[in-house]
């Protein structure tokens, strides 16, 4: 293994490593635009020039493989001068529209100019005008003038999605990044080009002019859009809440996780957070009286529901009670539900799976057909009908139609996605007590007698288990909307009211109890999960790696 010296630090790295990677390993950050660890190396931006002793000229750190005995200087006078020169070159035709540019604040051109540039422009010529504010796809806005031709986005479309929409056309100072004539940047992962664009050339249509990036706070989380469980950062605006009409979550950005999503995420997940601040959110417990919804306090809601549940159980027995949990819930919510329904109420008819009639889009990269983030977790906790020798969802609906089911507790589901509209309506209308617990209203919640508001994924702590058995944490980014509470809190409070208290105070308590009780989670604890998650017992990392075959 070659030994090299970078800025008087000696390091031994694997053969084939480039200088920029070696420097990264010892915490030296060399400026870069075109280099991205997830893409091929082209060495076109020239900002990463470093001095390597006994080489006549400066070398690009991203493309130079290490050799034994190499001595590299990443920040001496010569290198800094070169960086300044490169920046000056890149900025010759770059417009000075930082005030209107959405990238301002997270722009690498701005950052490096402040670190290394700070020269007075020598150019008196007019800047070359190119197209501004050009929508090149459903999600992406292109500003050709701002592009520094690093080709990251081109390589992303060539190498990651292999859809080849983008290219660099023309020559000299007229060189321009554009989609292939007649084509749009409309692949399922197009949002990633915005993330990797180091400048403001590609910006997000959805995020455009909504807020400034320096108002945003990042909270690490996991995408709830499908069972892949891509790691994300939730960007939310705590500083200026009046921006964007009170929409609290501004955008989602992928978070690096080598085992799951690497640097990427799909557009479906990226823009799938709108329900968090949608008008359809249930913000307070409510009850339907003579066709009208009426708001309740939590105290009253829990009292009334508990009384009714008790009455039905007494009159008709546990067999007349059906529970439809949801793989949208966190492990904690599911476990608290299991405790509540199985131990407090001794109900057996518990199921969570509603197979969607329309199959979701799936590919061999990040998108899975199962659009729930925690199906695997629900299975492992033992909540499918088979585990409980109870009724399946379809059977429950059938029983309801035949008046055998007197109470139904539905979490999150929109049953119309799995069953015909009339069927659901007929079945639910015959049940005496339908309780819906969820974040947003849907056609099922409209058929319920009670609606309980549940906190959405950005409003609570908890864990999801992805399709490969990886348990990953989500974190509370914003306060729950209105009166909503995490699912496990609702079940805990109900259980307490019905005479059996659960000693849970935060999500970690529930998870630790879950880890003690459920075999697949044995040995885990909330503290152990970490930023990249941990695998459940009996799962090998390789199953996941296969998923990422396309990336490598």
């Amino acid at each position, binding site marked *: 293994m070659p030994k090299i010296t970078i800025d008087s630090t000696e390091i031994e790295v694997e053969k084939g490593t480039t200088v920029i990677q070696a420097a990264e390993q010892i915490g030296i950050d060399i400026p870069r635009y075109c280099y991205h660890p997830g893409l091929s190396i082209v060495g076109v931006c020239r900002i990463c020039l470093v001095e390597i002793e006994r080489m006549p000229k400066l070398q690009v750190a991203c493309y130079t493989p290490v050799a034994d005995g190499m001595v590299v200087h990443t920040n001496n006078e010569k290198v800094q001068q070169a960086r300044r020169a490169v920046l000056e070159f890149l900025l010759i035709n770059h417009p000075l529209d930082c*005030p*209107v540019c959405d990238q301002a604040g997270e722009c690498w051109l701005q950052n490096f100019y402040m670190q290394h540039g700070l020269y007075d422009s020598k150019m008196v010529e007019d800047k070359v005008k190119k197209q*501004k504010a050009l929508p090149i796809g459903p999600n992406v806005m292109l500003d050709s003038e701002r592009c520094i031709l690093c080709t990251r986005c081109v390589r992303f479309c060539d190498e990651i999605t292999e859809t080849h929409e983008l290219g660099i056309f023309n020559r000299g100072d007229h060189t321009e990044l554009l989609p292939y004539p007649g084509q749009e940047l409309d692949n399922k992962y197009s949002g990633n080009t915005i993330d990797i664009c180091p400048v403001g050339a590609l910006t997000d249509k959805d995020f455009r002019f909504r807020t400034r990036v320096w108002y945003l706070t990042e909270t690490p989380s996991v995408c709830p859009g499908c069972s892949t469980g891509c790691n994300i950062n939730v960007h939310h605006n705590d500083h*200026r809440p009046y921006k964007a009409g009170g929409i609290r979550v501004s955008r989602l950005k992928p978070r690096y996780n080598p085992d799951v999503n690497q640097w990427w995420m799909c557009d479906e997940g990226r823009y799938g957070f709108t329900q968090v601040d949608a008008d359809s959110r249930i913000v307070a417990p409510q009850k339907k009286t003579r066709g009208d919804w009426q708001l309740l306090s939590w105290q009253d809601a829990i009292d009334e529901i508990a009384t009714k549940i008790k009455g039905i159980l007494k009159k008709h027995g546990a067999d007349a009670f059906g529970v439809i949990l949801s793989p949208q819930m966190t492990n904690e919510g599911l476990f608290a539900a299991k405790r509540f329904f199985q131990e407090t109420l001794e109900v057996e008819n518990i199921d969570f799976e509603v197979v969607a009639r329309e199959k979701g889009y799936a590919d061999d990269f990040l998108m899975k057909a199962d659009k729930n983030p925690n199906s695997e977790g629900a299975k492992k906790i033992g909540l499918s009908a088979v585990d409980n020798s109870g009724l399946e969802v379809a059977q429950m609906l059938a029983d309801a139609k035949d008046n055998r089911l007197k109470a139904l507790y539905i979490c999150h589901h929109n049953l119309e996605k799995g069953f015909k509209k009339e069927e659901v309506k007929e079945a639910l209308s015959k049940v005496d007590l339908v309780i819906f617990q969820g974040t947003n209203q849907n056609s099922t919640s409209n058929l319920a007698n009670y609606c309980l508001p549940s906190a959405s994924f950005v409003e609570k702590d908890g864990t999801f288990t992805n399709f490969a058995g990886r348990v990953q944490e989500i974190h509370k980014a914003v306060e729950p909307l209105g009166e909503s509470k995490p699912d496990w809190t609702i079940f805990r409070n109900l259980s307490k009211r019905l005479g059996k208290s659960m000693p849970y105070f935060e999500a970690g308590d529930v998870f630790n109890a879950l880890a003690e009780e459920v075999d697949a989670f044995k040995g885990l604890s909330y503290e152990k999960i970490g930023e990249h998650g941990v695998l459940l017992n009996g799962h090998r990392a390789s199953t996941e790696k296969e998923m990422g075959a396309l990336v490598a």
Partner: protein
Amino acid sequence: MNIHDKYKPLTFWEKLYLPAIISGLWLTSMHFFRNLTLHILRALRLRKTADGAVTIQYPEFLRPLFPRLRTMHRLTKRDDGTPRCVACMMCETVCPAKCIYIIADEKLENPEIEKMPESFDIDLGLCIFCGYCVEACPVDAIRMDTGILEISNLTRKGMVLDMETMLNLEPMQDRYVKYTKEGEIVSQEYLKQDLSK
């Protein structure tokens, strides 16, 4: 230097305090009697110069405003009458009182402008008139040169300036300021100007 040298021990006379108190009383009493006399003389029209007070009787008389004085904000316009502001939120960001509220709007018709404020509110109830917003503005869209100092309202909401109002404000009027090139006041005419008439 030894720090104790700073404090001379007081003499007995000084320790009594009474002489110091009396000299203080003497000073203030002299002002009192001098001013009392001057006021009486003025009231009897025996003497016209020399005031018994330095007070300027606002609002009948106004002090001159210096051009650099920071007064109520206004927004500047482009030639076509649209606001110069590009809603970059620099002023909003730098504002230490957090009294500026901007909501941006997209203008696709004119790619040269691209971004403009949909609403631009300043809550003068919070504003501390530090002028950072003027400093921060990259396009010279906000200025504090209206010369308007009398800012009051009966409601909190009334203290909020909206974009329409600020766009229609004019810079400080000349009658407030009369200076030579060196910045000296040309005349004190302003003192005689009774604005209530």
